[in-house]
């Protein structure tokens, strides 16, 4: 029915007592996600959300006491790399980092470490994961999607919500929606998620939402061409973006003339992916 997260996910929230962390923890709990623990150093022993979620001083303690297997990170950018290392070293299997604005050097170190430890990282600078009707890990609004058989993977936030919402309006549901984030160096990429969707018996079609910068969309096209049997549609943001300027996301930039939307669209169309001209066209392409 889904990839990465579902009703069995035992979630821990790093930065649970912060403004953002607490708000989204409540949203996740209300959605039905099993939030088993929170971590805020110095606040161990407290409870948040009217006694629903216990707070620990460290990830290790939280994981030991509660059996958490997934962590979502809401700590400030300057502490985020440490939070990711802490989660990986404590044996967490899936780490989802929402935090935006983490230095690239930190992320290169984190990525290097996670690759070698074989811990899966989603993000950073991402909206997280939503398995409609199953679990919500991150900040994707729960009410904009319904359960279904379409897998969505995206570098963007609200643009993804737009697509989920358009699908819902068309009566189409999602198996899992994965926001991989808009940073130039991140954890899981398009190809990783496409592989998971290809192997998931409950996903029948996939939507890829890319944008300018880097070459992950081209790699995705290559993967789709050689390894995917399922139907794929896509949208690439940034056709009107000028070169050399960062379009909000740290990774969304056309450098030395490469990483343009046109290139990416060409690569995807060349392998049979139907590329939408605008987000609201996606449902029709999947019909």
């Amino acid at each position: 029915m889904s990839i990465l997260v579902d009703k069995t996910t035992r979630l821990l929230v790093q930065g649970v007592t912060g403004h953002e962390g607490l708000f989204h923890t409540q949203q996740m709990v209300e959605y039905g996600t099993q939030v088993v623990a929170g971590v805020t150093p110095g606040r161990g022993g407290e409870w948040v959300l009217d006694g629903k979620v216990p707070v620990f001083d460290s990830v290790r303690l939280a994981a030991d006491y509660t059996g958490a297997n997934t962590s979502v990170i809401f700590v400030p950018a300057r502490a985020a790399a440490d939070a990711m290392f802490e989660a990986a070293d404590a044996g967490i299997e899936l780490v989802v980092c929402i935090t935006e604005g983490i230095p690239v050097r930190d992320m290169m170190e984190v990525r290097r470490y996670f690759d070698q430890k074989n811990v899966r990282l989603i993000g950073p600078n991402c909206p997280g994961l939503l398995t409609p009707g199953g679990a919500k890990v991150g900040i994707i609004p729960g009410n904009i999607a319904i359960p279904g058989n379409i897998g969505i993977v995206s570098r963007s936030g609200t643009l993804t919500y737009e697509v989920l919402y358009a699908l819902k309006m068309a009566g189409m549901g999602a198996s899992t929606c994965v926001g991989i984030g808009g940073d130039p160096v991140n954890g899981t990429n398009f190809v990783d998620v496409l592989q998971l969707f290809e192997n998931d018996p409950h996903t029948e079609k996939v939507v890829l939402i890319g944008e300018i910068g880097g070459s992950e969309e081209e790699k995705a096209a290559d993967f789709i061409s050689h390894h995917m049997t399922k139907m794929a549609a896509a949208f690439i943001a940034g056709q009107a973006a000028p070169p050399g300027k960062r379009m909000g996301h740290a990774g969304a930039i056309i450098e030395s003339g490469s990483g343009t939307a046109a290139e990416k669209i060409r690569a995807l169309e060349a392998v049979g992916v139907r590329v939408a001209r605008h987000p609201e066209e996606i449902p029709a392409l999947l019909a």
Partner: protein
Amino acid sequence: MKLHEYQSKTIFSRYKIPIPRGRVAATASEAKQIAEELGGRVVIKAQVLVGGRGKAGGIRLAKNSKEAEELATVILGMDIKGLPVRKLLVDETVRIQKEIYLGITNDRTMNRPVMMASSEGGVEIEEVARISPDKIIKTHIDPLLGLRDYQARDLAVSIDLPRDLWRGFQEICHGLWNAYSQSDASLAEINPLVITVENRLLALDGKMVVDDNALFRHPDLADMRDLDVEAAPEVEARKYGLSYIQLDGEIGCMVNGAGLAMATMDIIQLYGGTPANFLDIGGGASAEKVGAAFRIILSDPKVKVVLINIFGGITRCDEVARGILGAISEVKPKIPMVVRLVGTNAAEGLRLLGDAHMVTAETLVDAAQTAVRMAKGEGR
């Protein structure tokens, strides 16, 4: 954040990279004095953060201190590609035997930094990459290990550097790597790195770009920011936590989320309009933020219509609508606006705006088409 040549070279010299003797000047008389100290014959270089200074006449050779003063006066009066020249670097002149290239940047495909060297220095590296890519030698740096000495040596071997310069070249490589990693740079470049006729290596020109997200660790670098480089509205936007980039079109855009903001520009273009800007207001939409966004968009006289596209997820659309109304009553924009709200409580938000006689739209297609029509003076 880009650093000026003189700032980059100052950092390089802290890491033991040899640079020409010289100093920065803000006036012609300072330039004259520095020229005197350096023995008269100097090169005067405009400090502006764009390429092509030389072709624009921003780099000139002075034979003596009097000429230095004259040339400094000329260059300080220049605008290069729209940027005013406020500072000059006055450097000793150097007799050059050969120009090579050395740089580091992040390779996002490999998730690690890459050091590049080329025997073809003095021209833009992108140019070398286009014409003779085999002349660029690359070595990727493990972020947990840092640059290894053998890697620097391999570069020296591969660009056919004379053996007596290897040791010095390796030291420069390590200096550049340390400057790069300890400054959280995303680019550090010496171009050209020259071999002088005295057979010394010298970093004649330098360029660094620092990761904005890491400036909290480098208050000294943050202080180096040159506000002249960016358009004033972009500077203003950053103050309010807005991400704004000015473009050439007629339809101003106000969107929440970077991806959606790009998609909004794209759909405007798709339907025959031209976006005037990229603007991401980020999460939430307080009257204060929306107001600042309006002011910034409207500071561009080319803007004929504003298209507001908000996806209400966690943020509720009725709250956003109230923010927009508050901002409008304060800013009082005189041009038409198209508002599209979607998601949580969108109906209520659209009702509030409709009551205030604003043009509303339910779909992105509808909003874009309406904005394009209005920009062309065709009314709704």
